């Protein structure tokens, strides 16, 4: 029965996602109209005649009313047709397949580092709440939340890449071709992205652990004679896991958005830099396709975290 409920929840959530997808791509499409510059002029090359430009407009359907253009894009996208780049002619699906793995690698890497460093720090601070160690960790975390990612990225490049030459300062290889090489390149960008994440995870985890530890049911556990270690690792962590998972899900979304800046700093061919380039050049099929891929990812990640939460906390129902 529980499985049926869960299946229905997934179906309902996916259905709810459709209007979000349409809305997100529509807003991006509208914003594209506001950006100065005309892709047809770019495509026509230097010194092109007005006639030539007009021909290009017609060929790409750029002369049509804006809503019709969006409608056509949507109709194609619904059939899995994302079109081709106006400038390079590369199918948008290929662009996504080429760049998105890079971005995902960096984002997942950054989230993993945030969790692997943030969780122990949060636990350490919570178990020593009120101690100097706790204040130090929480002070550093407040700083970490406040520092912008790209600023930290610059410092990292200066020290670890240009100074110590441990990691490459720019560039990338695809994780699909050379995974360990890709990890190598992804390390600095991921580190740059994870400062906020570590701080966020540590702070939230400490907060919810401290709250749980003073709860009545934890007092019962002490009264039963369980050891503090067992109470923390078994009951404490399971009780805060829903909270933690929610934080990590939101963090992934934030980090995914922040890759746009970090990809620019590290000159990485990710989906963020594809979007930036395409926006600058008015290459709307690429922008639309890439945004669609991002939004779908975010929706799926949210769905997965919500599903995991229902497993971890029996009180949550779809």
């Amino acid at each position: 029965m529980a499985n049926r409920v869960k299946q229905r929840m997934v179906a309902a959530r996916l259905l709810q996602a459709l209007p979000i997808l349409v809305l997100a791509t529509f807003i991006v499409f509208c914003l594209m109209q506001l950006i100065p510059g005309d892709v047809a002029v770019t495509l026509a090359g230097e010194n092109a005649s007005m006639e030539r430009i007009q021909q290009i407009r017609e060929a790409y359907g750029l002369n049509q009313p804006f809503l019709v253009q969006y409608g056509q894009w949507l109709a194609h996208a619904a059939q899995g047709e994302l079109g081709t780049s106006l400038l390079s002619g590369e199918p948008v699906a290929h662009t996504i397949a080429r760049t998105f793995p890079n971005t995902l690698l960096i984002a997942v890497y950054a989230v993993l580092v945030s969790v692997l460093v943030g969780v122990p720090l949060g636990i350490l601070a919570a178990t020593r709440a009120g101690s100097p160690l706790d204040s130090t960790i929480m002070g550093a975390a407040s700083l970490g939340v406040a520092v912008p990612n790209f600023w930290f990225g610059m410092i990292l490049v200066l020290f670890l890449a240009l100074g110590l030459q441990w990691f490459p300062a720019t560039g990338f290889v695809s994780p699909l071709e050379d995974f360990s090489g890709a990890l190598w390149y992804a390390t600095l960008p991921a580190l740059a992205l994870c400062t906020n994440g570590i701080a966020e995870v540590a702070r939230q985890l400490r907060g919810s652990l401290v709250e749980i530890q003073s709860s009545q049911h934890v007092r019962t556990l002490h009264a039963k004679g369980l050891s503090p270690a067992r109470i923390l690792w078994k009951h404490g962590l399971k009780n805060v896991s829903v909270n933690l998972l929610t934080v990590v899900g939101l963090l992934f979304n934030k980090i995914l958005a922040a890759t746009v800046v970090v990809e620019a700093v590290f000159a990485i061919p990710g989906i963020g830099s594809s979007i930036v380039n395409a926006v600058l050049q008015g290459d709307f099929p690429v922008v639309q396709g890439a945004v669609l891929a991002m939004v779908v990812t975010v929706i799926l990640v949210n769905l997965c975290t919500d599903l995991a939460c229902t497993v971890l906390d029996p009180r949550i129902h779809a």
Partner: protein
Amino acid sequence: MAHDDHTGQPLLAVNNLNIAFANDAGETAITRDVSFTVGHGERVGVVGESGCGKTVTGLALLGLLPERTARVRGEILFQGRDLLNMPARELRRLRGRDISMIFQEPMSALDPVFTIGEQLTETLRAHEKVGRREARERAVAALEEVGIPSPHLRLDDYPYQFSGGMRQRVMIAMALICRPRLVIADEPTTALDVTVQAQIIDLLRELSDTTGTALLFITHDLGVVAETCSRLLTMYAGEVVESAPVDTVLRRPAHPYSSGLLRSLPGLSERGGRLPSIPGRVPAPGQMPAGCRFQARCPHSADGCEQGQPLRELDNGRLARCWRGAELTLPGAVT
């Protein structure tokens, strides 16, 4: 009922227990020189107005007060050993095995994200070397004992799937699963419906009878004390003001505060009543008068009451913190 075992010492002897909490202004004393005993298998009721220190005393017995702020002095002898000087590890072994506690709020006292089967078996497995299977069987038996229908089907349910009364039954099962010598029940029925209250009280009394477990029963309900306990401790403003056999104190209390409580009682057959109120207010912690703490509200106050009042021994094992206790003839609930 046997108050002492063959060694001649009571199961629990609390001597001069002083509990204070540290705060910015220094320390606030909550209890002063609380002393009492609980014999083997004895059921002792503890009553007193809200804030008089009943819960903190109960928590102190198990070492459950917040370590960082609580200052506990005195002696808590359990089976002859002082719990206050016991290494944390050993005290932990005692908790849940020799001394258990049942709390007021069954809705929040169980861990919401673990099944009750898990919570029962982990208690057992913390103290005894038993395999998973056997632990589950004993958990089923424990649930059966507290009257949970089809217990083997409920083992994998979560606390939210139980009603308040059923959760309190689970708490009782958990408290008794290791067959402790002493159970501290801190207002175990206050949060429940009146009809359920009676069932839970009956259950506790029955189980204490069948298992020989002593019960320290903190309650607001003097009717429950009359039916369940053999001795009553009355607390006022952080002190024990009277300790006497229940039948004696009901007829002839020796402390004006106990008398006030009993006299305004609607009727001992009625259950679920709150403590009746006595005119005046309890002095705040940290602002206690030097003499008798009840003086401002006492109708029998006289010259001499401004002196500090020790717990005095009267006839047949009664103790009262009032120098006039022997001379006054105070009305009780039963005449």
